[in-house]
């Protein structure tokens, strides 16, 4: 077994439709090194980890391990070359035992005496001891483990695979500590230190202190490009924030000249002490008529769940919701709709579309009660058709006809139809979760114009999105969530927009 090993990526690019997730990314990592990978949400970190582990096949570029071409997009063969990975989405088989999971697919590589099961159990026990994990038995069923324990097993699995590789391994860690306690995270860090002589690491985390402490070198990604690589001693956090963000903002794009702010001081929706255990805690939030309130935060900060709770889609564990001055103890989606609080959820395909149904039905589902005749309880189909056509026209939903199944429309037009769903009712508050995800630039602009128009008419908007640029451009006020708590509230009037660094600083 060679003492050191080098993995290189050269000119890696990957596009998803119009979105360019990675552009000409190159990197090199040697045994004994921890490469810290940092960037904003959507900068391309996870895609890059996917390319290295083989779950994402890039459009162009090459990968070599010790000057030998590596098979891109083939997780099995990459893992045989010594690449192992710990990701946020866990990939354990719940019905199998811990040791079976750790050596899944690599059982034959574990040598020694005795029956295979006993051999694997012994090897797993030794590995867990080396990691100083004493509360997980090797023959426990994964289904019986807690979420953090599973994350530890996931980590053990990656290290086991590194142990079995023919050459010094590359271990990819994508937000490995997000589910771990501080103590458990420390266990991982000391394990990395001890393994450094015989492996290389790529470490991704939004906890910059951890990245700085562990890594010897940093690679900064922004918009899918490598912005800089720099040694991690003596780097100021502010400098990193600047590198991660630093781009020009266009004021026209977000119609900032039309930004007026709240038209009345009385909040249209007020949340106090909102808590959802393990997700967010003690959040106070108000939205006034005509105001756009942005909620910023990294993935997992609780912002998406907060938006869902405001829309009635999930129940708060404690805290109160007040809409137009009325306390709402049992806040549900039907009640929210009746009160004029409408939700545009983040995942179109799973959360908002009825793909086999017509564009018309997808729009009218939001106001069927208004189309029901009082005497016959039947729908007035003519009204339905006319209203849907009018709304589709107003929001410029491009479709062959209103009877076309909505699944055949482009993402942008689907999203406009989802907005149209709520536009026939009197709207007080719009709760938007990543409303422009995967949508082309032109349609984005149309949606921004729509939002400005609604705000001018006194609609309150709660906007939670992955894009800082969008939140700064649109919002009058920005609430920053960090680990489920409000870490800052930043004013963002049209004339005094904060910079992205000002916001990012409170996110991480």
């Amino acid at each position, binding site marked *: 077994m060679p003492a050191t090993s080098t993995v290189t990526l050269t000119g890696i690019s990957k596009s998803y439709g119009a979105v360019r997730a990675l552009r000409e990314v190159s990197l090199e990592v040697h045994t004994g090194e921890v490469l810290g990978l940092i960037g904003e949400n959507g900068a391309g970190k996870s895609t890059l980890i996917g390319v290295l582990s083989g779950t994402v096949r890039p459009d162009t570029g090459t990968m070599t391990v010790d000057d030998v071409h590596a098979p891109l997009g083939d997780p099995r063969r990459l893992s045989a070359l010594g690449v192992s990975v710990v990701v946020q989405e866990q990939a354990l088989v719940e019905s199998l035992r811990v040791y079976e999971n750790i050596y899944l697919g690599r059982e034959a590589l574990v040598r020694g005496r005795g029956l295979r099961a006993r051999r694997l159990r012994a090897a797993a026990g030794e590995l867990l001891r080396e990691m100083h994990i004493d509360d997980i038995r090797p023959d426990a069923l994964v289904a019986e483990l807690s979420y953090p324990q599973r994350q530890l097993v996931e980590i053990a699995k990656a290290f086991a695979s590194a142990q079995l590789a023919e050459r010094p391994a590359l271990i990819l860690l994508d937000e490995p500590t997000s589910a771990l306690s501080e103590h458990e995270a420390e266990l991982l860090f000391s394990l990395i230190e001890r393994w450094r002589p015989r492996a290389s690491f790529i470490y991704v985390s939004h906890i910059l202190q951890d990245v700085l402490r562990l890594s010897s070198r940093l690679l900064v990604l922004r918009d899918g490009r490598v912005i800089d690589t720099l040694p991690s001693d003596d780097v100021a956090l502010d400098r990193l924030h600047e590198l991660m963000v630093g781009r020009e903002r266009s004021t026209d794009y977000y119609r900032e000249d039309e930004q007026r702010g709240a038209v009345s001081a009385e909040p249209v929706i007020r949340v106090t002490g909102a808590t959802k255990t393990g997700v967010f805690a003690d959040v106070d939030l108000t939205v006034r008529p005509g105001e756009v309130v942005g909620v910023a935060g990294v993935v997992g900060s609780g912002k998406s769940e907060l938006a869902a709770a405001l829309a009635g889609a999930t129940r708060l564990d404690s805290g109160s919701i007040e809409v137009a001055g009325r306390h709402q103890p049992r806040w549900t989606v039907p009640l929210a709709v009746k009160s004029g609080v409408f939700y545009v959820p983040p995942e179109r395909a799973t959360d*908002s579309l009825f793909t086999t149904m017509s564009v018309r039905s997808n729009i009218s589902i939001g106001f069927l009660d208004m189309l029901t005749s009082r005497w016959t309880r039947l729908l007035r189909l003519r009204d339905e058709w006319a209203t849907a056509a009018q709304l*589709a026209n107003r929001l410029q939903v*491009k479709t062959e006809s209103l009877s076309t199944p909505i699944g055949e429309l482009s993402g942008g037009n689907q999203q406009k139809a989802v907005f149209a769903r709520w536009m026939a009712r009197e709207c007080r508050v719009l709760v938007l979760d990543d409303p422009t995800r995967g949508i082309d630039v032109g349609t984005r602009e149309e949606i921004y114009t729509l939002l400005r128009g609604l705000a001018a008419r006194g609609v309150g908007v709660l906007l939670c999105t992955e894009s800082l640029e969008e939140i700064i451009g649109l919002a009058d006020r920005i609430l920053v969530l960090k680990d489920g708590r409000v870490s800052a509230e930043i004013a963002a009037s049209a004339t005094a927009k904060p910079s992205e660094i000002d916001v990012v600083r409170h996110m991480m």
Partner: protein
Amino acid sequence: MTMNSLDVLSPPAAGGPQSGGRSRANALTYLARYRNILVPIVALVVLVAYFGARNSAFISTGSAQNIERQMAFLTVLALAGTFVILIGGIDLSVAANATLAGILIAKWLDSYGGVVAILLVLLVGGLVGLANGLIATLLKVPSFLVTLGMMSVLDGVSNTISHGGPVSYNSGLLNTLVNKSSIRGVPNGALLAFVLVIVFTVLVFVTSYGRHIYAVGGNERAARLSGVRVLSVKLSVFVLSGVIAAVAGIILTGQASTGVPLGADPSLLNSIAAIVVGGTALSGGVGGPHRTLLGALVIVILGSGMDITAVGPYTQLIVKGVVVIAAVALTIDRRRYGLIK
């Protein structure tokens, strides 16, 4: 083209949506588009023509009445299953529920009097449906398993009540309701089935409750997030299914003039075949009661046509199976939606 849009009945888009004007689709793409309604209709025409040519007795009043009788029962039974399938579940207990209703009506008709007995039987059917629904939604047991178990429970119950033998009754009410004709040549049972199809077709297309059924079947999560009360839609659909199954049981007992143990049970697979051949997808959200009428006609005509042309019973089974598979393969546009979840 999904059938939950009432394109035929609706006026064209006033002002039209953006890109202006419908595309001038040629005849072929139209055929492809509407094939899920065309396939069962063409199948019907071909079957009638074929059996008519083979044996002229097929196109006769007697044969028509026979078909109408069978169709009445099978359509109503399949209607019961249609709604649960539309919300993306399946109800395997409809036939057993119909059997129980058939036994109970025979048992109660003379002692309670016609109207009360019928109402009671419908109530029992509805309660069975409610039990299915509560277990499926609150305990989150897949409807397939709940209703599979319920089928066995109901068979046990109805055999206990009937002591495993036929239950006879004296009242002439059912005979009037099911076998006599208000319109010449059409038994009342068939008329009832037809009326039910119309009523339920209106229900699913022209009420918000109906739209909610399609929404829950099409995408339950999206339905919930857009304000549909998913739980109550699901529960009510199971109850509706139970009540309609009881109607099917009453029709069966009326036709047989006696409560038959396991009377409706053998028709379970036929009823599911009728639903699927009609073009209602097992994945939910696509199809409807009007399609089930077509499907039931195909299944019944196929069966009685083969009877009249003296096809052996074993061959009949083979042909029926092939027709079901072929119809589904041709009908559902699988590029657009899966047949099952």
